[in-house]
Structures are given as C-alpha cells and as structure tokens.
C-alpha cells in the first residue's frame, strides 16, 4: 500500500530539515502505529503524505500502490484514496457540515470519473455513518467544525473518513483532546473501517489510543527517522520505559 523510501524533507520557507532518511512500509490491511516524542516529525510526515505545499521533498520517494505520488497535488492524492484525519480540524464558517460532505464526496467521484451521488443515496449514506458515530442531524447542519467540541471535531473527521472510503487513512494525534468516552467512539469508528484492502497509519504520542485501535506494527520516529519497529508490545514498552532507552540504543 505505502512505501516510503529514504525520504528527506524540509520546511519550504526556511529550509529546516525535518524528515531525514525515513523508511517505512505499510502493507494492505495493516494498521501501523507511529510513535515518537514531541518534535520528532510525526505531524510533518502526515502533511507530506497528504501533499501540503509547505514542505519540500529533497530526496527519496513515496510510493502509493507502487506509484510515486510526489508530483500529485493534495486533491489528486485525496481522490486516489489518501485521507488525513487532522489533529486540529479546520473551521469553515457558513458551510454546513452536510454541504461540505456532499461537495467532497462528489468532487472525489468526479475526479475518478464516477457519477455524482443522488440526493437520497447521499442522505442514506450520511445518516447511517453518522448514527454509528453518534453524530446528530443537528450537528450536521452546523457549519463545519465551528464551535464543535474536541470530541465532535474528531468524530466529524472519522465521519468524513467513513464516507470518503479511502484506501490509506492517516490519523494524526486523533486521541488528543478526547475524554475516554469520546476516544472509544472514535476508536470504534476506525475499527469498523478496518479491512484487508484498507491500511491505517496511526500517529500518536501516547499508547492509550492503541489500547482501542490495536496496531499490527509499531514504529518509533525520532529526529525524522524510524529508529525502531516492532509489534504492539513495543508500544507497551514505550509506555512503561519512555523513549530514552530506545533513543540511546539507536544513537
């Protein structure tokens, strides 16, 4: 699904190198967790996968289903099935959540040469997915993310993910700002989307989320490189012992 090869990337504006030779492979159907201390490049990695222009890839490649995506702009990547759940979802005043969903779904369909959804079909899909995530119709009428609570914002991200049916989901610190009940709802939403042809990259600072979204692999990101990979037990080690030992061993 995803193959990142010797990736180097920097902030376009000031040239600061953030990703320094990163290698990572995520297979079809795999849930990969990326953990690491603050400032290790976790969020940057998610932005680079999504194609944000603020970052420049200087070396290496990102292959998605065997094809390099470096030349694709963000909306093209999205239409090919790459989805990023934002750590801080953005407010769009005056645009009802429902309206945003419809535009996004239809734009992606258009980009793939598919017909637009009929209104009843669209309504049915939204209703079903929203119910799963305990999202009320009232919330869908509100402007996207405007005045949403932390939990509402994250549920709205997962709702979009469910409706857009991506192949590669990148969750950036989806657990931040969530209480335990909200975390469970969000994790259930993600787990419901796990399938053999859909991969998930879970970026998180804490092990807590991984109790609910159990990963197949865990990778430690430090100073722009993966310094250790393992299975889910690696996350528990990190929780118990912190990053220091691993960082030291890698140095």
């Amino acid at each position, binding site marked *: 699904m995803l193959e990142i090869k010797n990736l180097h990337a920097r902030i376009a504006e000031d040239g600061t190198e953030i990703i320094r030779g990163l290698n990572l492979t995520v297979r079809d159907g795999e849930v990969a967790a990326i953990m690491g201390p603050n400032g290790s490049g976790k969020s940057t990695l998610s932005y680079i996968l999504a194609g944000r222009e603020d970052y420049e890839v200087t070396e290496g490649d990102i292959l998605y289903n065997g094809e390099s995506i470096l030349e694709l702009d963000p909306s093209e990547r999205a239409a090919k099935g790459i989805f990023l759940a934002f750590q801080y979802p953005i407010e*769009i005043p005056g645009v009802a959540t429902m309206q945003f969903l419809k535009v996004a779904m239809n*734009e992606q369909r258009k980009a793939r040469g598919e017909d637009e959804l009929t209104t009843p079909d669209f309504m049915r899909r939204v209703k079903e997915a929203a119910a799963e995530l305990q999202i009320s119709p009232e919330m869908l009428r509100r402007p996207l993310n405007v005045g949403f609570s932390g939990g509402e914002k994250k549920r709205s991200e997962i709702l979009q993910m469910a409706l857009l049916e991506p192949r590669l989901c990148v969750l950036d610190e989806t657990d931040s700002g969530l209480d335990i009940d909200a975390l469970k709802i969000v994790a259930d939403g993600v787990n419901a989307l796990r399938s053999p042809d859909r991969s998930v990259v879970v970026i998180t600072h804490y092990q807590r989320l991984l109790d609910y979204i159990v990963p197949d692999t865990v990778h430690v990101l430090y100073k722009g490189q993966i310094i250790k990979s393992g299975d889910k037990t690696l996350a528990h080690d990190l929780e118990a012992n912190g990053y220091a030992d691993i960082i030291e061993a890698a140095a």
Partner: protein
Amino acid sequence: MPAVQETIDQVRQIDVDQYKYGFETTVEMEKAPKGLSEDIIRFISAKKNEPDWMLEWRLGAYRRWLTLEEPAWARVNYPKIDFNDLYYYAAPKNQSGPMSIDDVDPEIIKTYEKLGIPLREQEILAGVQKSKVAVDAVFDSVSVVTTFKEELKKAGVIFMSISEAIREHPDLVKKYLGTVVPTTDNFYATLNSAVFTDGSFVFVPKGVRCPMELSTYFRINERDTGQFERTLIIAEEGAYVSYLEGCTAPQRDENQLHAAVVELVALDDAEIKYSTVQNWYPGDKDGKGGIYNFVTKRGDCRGKNSKISWTQVETGSAITWKYPSCILRGDNSRGEFYSIAVSNGHQQVDSGTKMIHLGKNTSSRIISKGIAAGVSQNTYRGQVSTHRKAENARNFTQCDSLLIGDRCGAHTVPYIEAKNSTSHFEHEATTSKISEDQLFYCLQRGIPEEAAIALIVNGFVKEVIQELPMEFAVEAQKLISISLEGSVG
C-alpha cells in the same frame, strides 16, 4: 447545496476575464447632442413630455450643480470625468417610453432574453414554487417595457416608469420626489436631479401587500452615454413591497458613468425591502474600461413602526461609490443593510451605509461582507448616528472582510456618533484571509482549489445571501463565484 455545485460548474466553464453580459446590441438610437447645458435639460424634459414644474425642478438642480465640487473623500482613484464629453440622453429610435411588447424592437427583446430577463408576462420558474416577478426594463435612457402593470393595478399598486408617473400621477410624484434625497444633496445626486432620464416608480397604497416581486433591470448599451436613473418607491401605511434591481452593461474599453438616485418612503407600519444585484461591467484584467457607479440611495422610515431593508450584492463596476442609507424618523422604526461587495482585478469599491436614528426606540442592523481579490481595493464606509431625541436607539454592525491573495486591500471606516446617553451600539469587524489551512483542508478532502474557494466564499457570504429573495439568491451566489474566478494562483 445545488447552488454551490452550479457555481463550481459555471466557474469551470467560463474562461478567465470573461464578463458574460458584455455583448452589445445594435439598434438605431436617438441621442441628445453631447454635453450638458440648460438646452440639453430642456431637450430631455421635452422628449419626456414633462410638465413645466418638472423642467423647473431639473433646471434648479442644474444651476445648483454648477456650484458644486466633485467629492474626493472616498478611497477611489480615477481620472477626472469630463461631464461635457457624455451623452445625457440615448433612446432606441421610435421609443420614447414604454410600449406594448409587440411594438418593441425585436433586438431589444432579444437583448433581455440573453440577459435572462422575461419581458413577456410569463411565470418564471423558481424551484418548485412558481412565482411572478414584474419587470420594468430600462434600456439606456428609457424604460421599454413594464410587465404585469394591469394585474398590479387591480391590487392598487402603481408600477411604471418614472417618466410615465410624472405625466400620469403628478401629484404623487410632486409630493414625494426629492423629499428623501433633496436636489441639493450631493454632487452626483444633484446632477441626477438635473438630467435623470428614466427609472421606476412604485406606489403601494395603504394596507396593501404587493402581490408579487417588483424589479427593474437597467441596461447601459450605447457608447459614451451616462445612465441617470431615478427610482421612487412609496409604501403607505401598513403596505409591503419587495423590489429588486439588476444591472449590466457591454464590455468596452472606455469608462461609462452611472449616477442613480433611489428614494424610498415608508409610512406608518410599512415595510420596503430593496435588493440589488449589481453586475455592471467591471473593466478588463488590466483595469481598462468599466462602469463608474456613483449612486445615492436612501430610505426614509417616515412613519412609526416602519421598516426599510437594503440588501445588495455588488460584483461589477470599475468604481463603486454607494451608501444605501436609512433615516429612522418614525418611532420604533427599523433599518437594515445587508451587503456583499466583491472586488477583483483593478476594481475599487467604497461602499457602506448610513443609519440616522431620529425617532425613539429605533433600531438598525448592518451586516457587511467585503471580499477583495486581485489588486482591488474594498472599503466599507458606514455611519451610525443617534439624534438627541432618539432615546433607546440601538444599532448592531458587523463588518467582515475576506482577502484572497496578497495584493488586494480591505478597509473599514466606521463613523459612530451618539448624541444621547441611552443609545446602544455594537460594532464588530473582522478581516481574514482564506487561510492556507482552510484551503489545504478542503484540498485534502478532494475538493480542487477553485471549488474550495467557491465553497469558502459562499460560506462567508451566507448570512447576506439568505436575505435575498429566493429567486435571486442562487443567481447571486453564481455571480460572486464568477467574479472571483481567476483570483487564485
């Protein structure tokens, strides 16, 4: 939702820098000689078969105008206008006033068809519900057709061109004309009083709710011609009327002048809702050509509990100088101003409102949304004042500006005056850019850049769009997106 989708489709279909209404109609025209003088004013007045008092009124205004200076306080720049290098009267030959549709030059009918304006009395489709809209069509200096006149007459509503009204209802015109915008008001209004050629007249008698939307469609066609429209709307006690004006002009290299005056009078318990979708030719991408729009619009809430509401969507004109205002004279009267002003390319907009609180317990509400793109300058200029006797006057003002790109400017210039201690004013102003974050978020969801901007802008203006009559809200949304097209990159 469908409106947004249509917006996007429309934006895609049209090439950058293409003004959709820029075509020219070839009809034989009759013009007054170029320039401005008492003789020209006599010529116009004679063309319109006006009574003597009207001619005197015009001449009085002209003499006054000769003593006035062009105002220079607005944040707009343009070369000095030579007022003697314009035609002040241009009408299709054989048409000195409205006539039966069958007699109108087919070229003119075709023009309005192209513009999507029905001159035949048909029911226009608006969503599910069929609704009627009466139209007064003004072509350069003359009203060519007014529809649904008979049907409106049955309800007691008078809807006709102002030229006809001067002849047919002189007492009403005399009683109200110039009582809201006096001939001495300002440079452009005074000029208009001297040379106005046509416009609409609406009279809704006591207790009548006007049974349909009224609208006037202004078209400038002839080269080097100024359009000086004059509109007068009167709602008697307890009456209600909703009125919409639309404007377009051909695409030309030289600038053309449009200096209109609109007066509204609302007596006790009356309500007037006045909406404008202004789409004059804005000039090309290098700032060449376009209409100079210098307009004085004012409503007088003369009676108690009266209400006047202005809603405007301004997307055209090279220069806009326009401040639709309300004089809140009657106790408990209410004024509203909802505005969307879009500027792109080299457009300059200086627009806003005045809310003058004179009566007790008067209230006003101002919602202004300015969107600037390209190298345009977009200024909100608004005045709220309360008179000594205007106890418990209240105003709420919200001015939001949205910048697209980094070469345009948005400016907010509020003037607030309270002459008593019981006034209550609230003023909120924001300026924002379509943020990189918002764009990236939309892109990441698979929404391409142009569609993303259309979506964000439509969200930004939603509060105002929903004030427009249903039939026109969709049009207005489309128009805004088209105006902003090519603003990214």
